[in-house]
């Protein structure tokens, strides 16, 4: 096969790979940093410090009913496990900042809430559904992914997994 022909065949193959390549965040991947993605704090003035911590990153939106249902559960988990080193970061993907602010004002979560203004982080992560939460270990790697919110079942599973990660040392 001539080099010219090889080049001609390589072009569509590269295109095919680009089309089918999935960039969604998986278990074992390093969770992207919040600040470079343009994420800003919604509650408080600074982004929460997550280095060396067990972090639960929860993607939510004001228009998402299961997200609203999950907040009281996340608040209880925060109250119980924050003293042991858990950091919960709730990432709003609302296009309207006012809607996110109104949602937070109503629910007043005790954990950190941030805003992915340009939806850059959520595109990078490629959440499969709303809400989706990523449990990140102390080394910054995603260890568990939770799609949707299923009430007590999610609560039990989250607590079990968080306890496992909190017990791990770097």
């Amino acid at each position: 096969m001539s080099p010219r022909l090889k080049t001609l065949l390589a072009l569509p193959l590269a295109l095919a790979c680009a089309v089918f390549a999935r960039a969604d965040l998986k278990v074992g991947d390093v969770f992207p940093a919040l600040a470079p993605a343009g994420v800003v704090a919604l509650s408080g003035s600074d982004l929460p410090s997550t280095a060396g911590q067990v972090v639960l990153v929860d993607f939510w939106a004001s228009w998402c009913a299961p997200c609203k249902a999950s907040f009281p559960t996340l608040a209880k988990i925060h109250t119980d496990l924050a003293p042991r080193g858990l950091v919960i970061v709730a990432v709003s993907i609302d296009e309207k900042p006012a809607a996110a602010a109104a949602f937070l004002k109503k629910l007043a979560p005790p954990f950190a809430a941030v805003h992915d203004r340009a939806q850059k982080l959520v595109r990078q992560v490629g959440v499969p559904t709303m809400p989706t939460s990523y449990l990140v270990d102390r080394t910054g790697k995603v260890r568990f992914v939770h799609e949707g919110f299923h009430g007590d079942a999610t609560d039990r599973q989250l607590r079990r997994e968080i306890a496992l990660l909190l017990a791990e040392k770097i």
Partner: protein
Amino acid sequence: MRPSFRLPLILVAVLVATFSTGCTNAQLVRVKPWERATLTEYAMNPGRDPLATAMSEHVYFSRETATGGRGVGGSGCGCN
């Protein structure tokens, strides 16, 4: 053009056309989970006005002799 080049070139043209013009399944425009804010708005609910829904049902029934096509078993054909 030499005949030996013709078939590979046709193949390349077909592949390029397939993958670069949105004809593949992966390139179909899909609403991502984080893009559904508009879809959740009240105005996007087709059943938001019960009176209008009832009137539409009545029109279907009286003009087309069809009823129950909105989630109820049977389509008015009388075959269930």
